[in-house]
């Protein structure tokens, strides 16, 4: 199992989610973060005080997947989050020691396999 952590542009979130659903990746956590990835800082002025905004709004997506889902997940984020300009973000693939599903106490691969939703 792997934990995939992606940092993306806020305005690309919808595209990425759509792309993930298309790749049948379920189970996503999204958080708002601020970060710096080497892009040009915005210069802002408030009442004569000029500041460089060194931190930009970003979105962090976390997805726990079984091994054969790693590549489709990464590819769908890569294709959906890209604008080609500095500041598009990063994807980290991190090994995971174990995963539990709280509802059932299932462990590892069973825990990250999506459950078919009963109609």
């Amino acid at each position, binding site marked *: 199992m792997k934990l995939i952590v992606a940092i993306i*542009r806020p*305005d*690309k979130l*919808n595209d990425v989610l759509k792309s993930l659903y298309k790749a049948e990746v379920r189970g996503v956590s999204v958080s708002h973060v*601020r970060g*710096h990835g080497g*892009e*040009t*800082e*915005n*210069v*802002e*002025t*408030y009442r004569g*005080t*000029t*500041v*460089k*905004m*060194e*931190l*930009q709004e970003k979105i962090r997506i976390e997805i726990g997947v079984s091994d054969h889902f790693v590549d489709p997940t990464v590819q769908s984020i890569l294709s959906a989050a890209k*604008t080609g*300009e*500095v*500041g598009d973000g990063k994807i980290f693939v991190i090994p995971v020691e174990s995963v539990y599903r709280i509802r059932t106490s299932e462990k590892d691969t069973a825990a990250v396999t999506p459950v078919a939703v009963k109609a």
Partner: protein
Amino acid sequence: MSFDLLSSGLSILAQVENPPTTAPAVVPVVNPADTAWMLVSTALVLFMTPALAFFYGGLARSKNMLNTMMMSFIAMGFVGVAWALVGYSLAFSDGNKFIGGLSWAFLQTIGTDPKVGTTIPHVLFMAYQATFAIITAALISGAIIERMRFGAYVAFITLWSIVVYAPVCHWVWGGGWAGAAPGIGALDFAGGTVVHINAAAAALVAAIVVGKRKDFGRQALLPHNVPLVLLGAGALWFGWFGFNGGSALASNASAATAFTNTMLAPCATMVAWTLLDLLRTGKVTGVGCGTGIVVGLVAITPAAGFLSPTSAMAVGLIAAFPSYFAIIIRAKTSLDDSLDVFAAHGLGGITGALLTGVFADETWGGAGNKGLLNGNPGQLLIQAEAIVGTLVYSLVVSFILIKIIGFLLPLKATDAQQGVGLDVVDHGEEAYSNGEGAVLILENESTSTPAASPSTIGAR
């Protein structure tokens, strides 16, 4: 605000209040009560522009909040100046049936003597009318938020206030073809055609020429702050008492009629809108409530001083329907009139202007001002002519104007700029900055820092 109506109304009142002892040759004098009410009304109408900024801003996304608000606020600067320099003269000085002259340009000869046909100082009349020009131009912004470049927008509304607003204002209120004597001319008490239909036509043109937002039709573009939408709608209602009540240009019975109708019509629209919401979705929405208030206010604007309070509620009730369904249908088309300026102000204004020709009543509106239900079916046709005239002129001239501006300046922010949000791109500010990561730029290093030009941001 038909002057002919007003002068005839005033002379009737004068006769009632000052029995025959007064000589008929009236020397114009400034009336203190009228002046007091118009001073208040002018401030009330000016307040509508910041109110509109909150209404529109709440409906935008948070990254475009300041830009959306600034599009309303900036009209108070640029359109206000343009109005004083030339707009007022083109609208109200002597000219032909289509446009006024330049005899009052730069406010020449405009002093504190009463404006002809009124009992208020001419400067006050000019200031009151300036607030109308400002809010009308600001209304257009709702159609092009979140993607029109700020400079091109400012150029557009400033020139628009001169080449579109001033002539249309002249037609109806300045002695032009659409506002002739009672029973002959169109009835437009406070600007259903001049303000709302006119601005809505320009908004439609701007939305089409500028084009849609990059995310339009692909993502849900939701209001970021509904409480501010309701605050703005409430403040608009407050200011609208000056807009309609003040359009009597006097502190008199006509003002009281218009004021009361401005109170009641939106009540009826809200009830109708609420029930439509309830029937359609089972829920009553806050945004719908705010929109209903605005539509009711728009619809009663041309009619305000011409009909009974009961008729005003009928106007408000009926006006809910076209706008309500137009907003639902518009969202399914590819037309990105982002905040439904045409559905609210265009259809609301058309409905109100037509219904003025139906419900106008001599008992309330003064001699000769009667509509279909009071035995004057011809008024409906006259109303329709004024609507079509305004629509055609505003659509055509606004189109030519925005095309010329588009030839000189890019109209639309790039996709990357829209992604960042126009607050940072156009204004170098954020509406809701918490200051995290802000590094102070000191005087001596500011030159070496890449400037906040939109191009650097767009290219990141």
